[in-house]
């Protein structure tokens, strides 16, 4: 994938202090095109799609929505809290605004914690963007597939 001027503009909006305090790239120095290409390769290698990953995470969020920040155990495993923050956050790709409340997930089995929100899921589903390395919102596609048990789609499905 080529780093186009459009990707340059998007990457500029991902810097700290523009849309959010810490931005979307963490300490990742690579061009956005490279970040997107590497994550696409990981997703393809796992035999799944960005949409499948986003759908799986959205389903977990749904279990915690409407609970006004009360923690809920999902699938007898994940401890999930959906924050009730107000306000909308713009997408760095300039294609919409998304509710700010984070879904916070702890997995006692692996000791891992995860954090995402409506914008994160949009960025995964529509842009294949999982944040840069070192970002608080970085999600490793391979790890998501393993921890949340995302199965490859059946051929022709």
């Amino acid at each position, binding site marked *: 994938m080529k780093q186009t001027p459009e990707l340059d503009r998007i990457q500029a*909006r991902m*810097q*700290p*202090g*523009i*849309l*959010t*305090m*810490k*931005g979307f790239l963490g300490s990742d120095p690579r061009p956005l095109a490279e970040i997107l290409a590497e994550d696409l390769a990981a997703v393809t290698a796992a035999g799944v799609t960005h949409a499948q990953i986003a759908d799986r995470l959205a389903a977990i969020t749904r279990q915690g*929505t*409407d*609970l*006004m*920040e*009360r923690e809920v155990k999902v699938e007898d495993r994940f401890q999930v809290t*959906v*924050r*009730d*923050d*107000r*306000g*909308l956050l*713009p997408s*760095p790709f*300039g*294609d*919409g*605004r998304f*509710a*700010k*409340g*984070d879904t916070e997930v702890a997995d006692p089995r692996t000791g891992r914690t995860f954090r995402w929100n409506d914008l994160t899921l949009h960025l995964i589903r529509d842009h294949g963007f999982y944040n840069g390395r070192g970002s*608080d919102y970085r999600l490793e596609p391979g790890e998501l597939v393993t921890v949340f048990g995302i199965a490859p789609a059946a051929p022709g499905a």
Partner: protein
Amino acid sequence: MSEVVTGVGVLSAVSVGLTVLLLVAEAIFATYGECEIDINKGERTFKVTGGGSLLRTLAGQKLFLPSGCGGRGSCGTCKCKVLDGGGPVLPTELPYLNPEERRTGIRLACQLKVKENVRIEIPADLLSVREFQAVTERITPLTHDIRGLRFRLPEGETVRFKAGQFVNLVSKPYGDVTEPTSRAYSISSAPADNRALELVIRLVPNGLVTTWVFNHLKEGETATLIGPYGEFFLRDSAREIIFIAGGSGLAPIRSIVLDMIERGITHRPATFFFGAVKLRDLYYVEEFQAIAAKHPWFRFKPALSGDETGHPWERGLITDVVARSYGTLDNHEAYLCGSPGMIGACVKVLTGKGLPENLVFYDKFS
């Protein structure tokens, strides 16, 4: 074949070069002279020097359209209707405009450059929006992650707003944040207290503006507030009122209840359901209890959804508490303030009990 490719390449390079040259030349040499801005068909007109964005040009005339991103073209909140003189819609605006808005001349004021006379239409309420340089008089911790802030307006200035409306609080640059940034906060004080503005702000972890409020803003410091904005206010009717809020959503409800007392609105029974998870998340409880003790038309029902015991409050999700408090809702209206998730859940419960959706009020963008 290779000649064709080379030809196309050269042509593209030349046209890119020309575009860059034109843009540079425009930036350096273009002066658009005096332009007239006409607002709401002559309701207000003024002359300005062209060249600036419409948003900044209007702000220069003390006219403040809502802005969530300080004019960077990334929030889509600075929309206004341009009747004449806006030029073509820019690619940077397209993601924020739906086909209907494009058809009817809605534009992003921060992207549109004033190059000629411009005629625009904005809601009349926005003409009374003002910018205040207020002194941070008091910062009060209300819970582990919520603070109350009281801003005193400059000597001789007063503010007019409807209880339930919000202002934009503008943070100053800090750390990696190099630009002032604004976020919306509901006013929690009563309109009668018109020499000050009170807000209730919840810390969002690593939130750009709330981190500034919690870690940088000090008592005695001046802060910029712009407003009032918003359509969330008490409707004139005789219906019984249901208020539902969670977290910082208490702020506008407090303003409305204080205003009802101030204006002597005693003929409308009102119940305020305030939802939280744990005891440590409740605040302003004594104030609302005192109001309930003094004003028979007002009831206060905090509810805790966590498993703490030994408290006098309702237990369970606020939606469950509301559900078990009412039968059919046939002479009520509801005012909700909280996250989209909370609002969605409450709307479901209320409409399920027969309350028409047009009698449920909340801030759409919250």
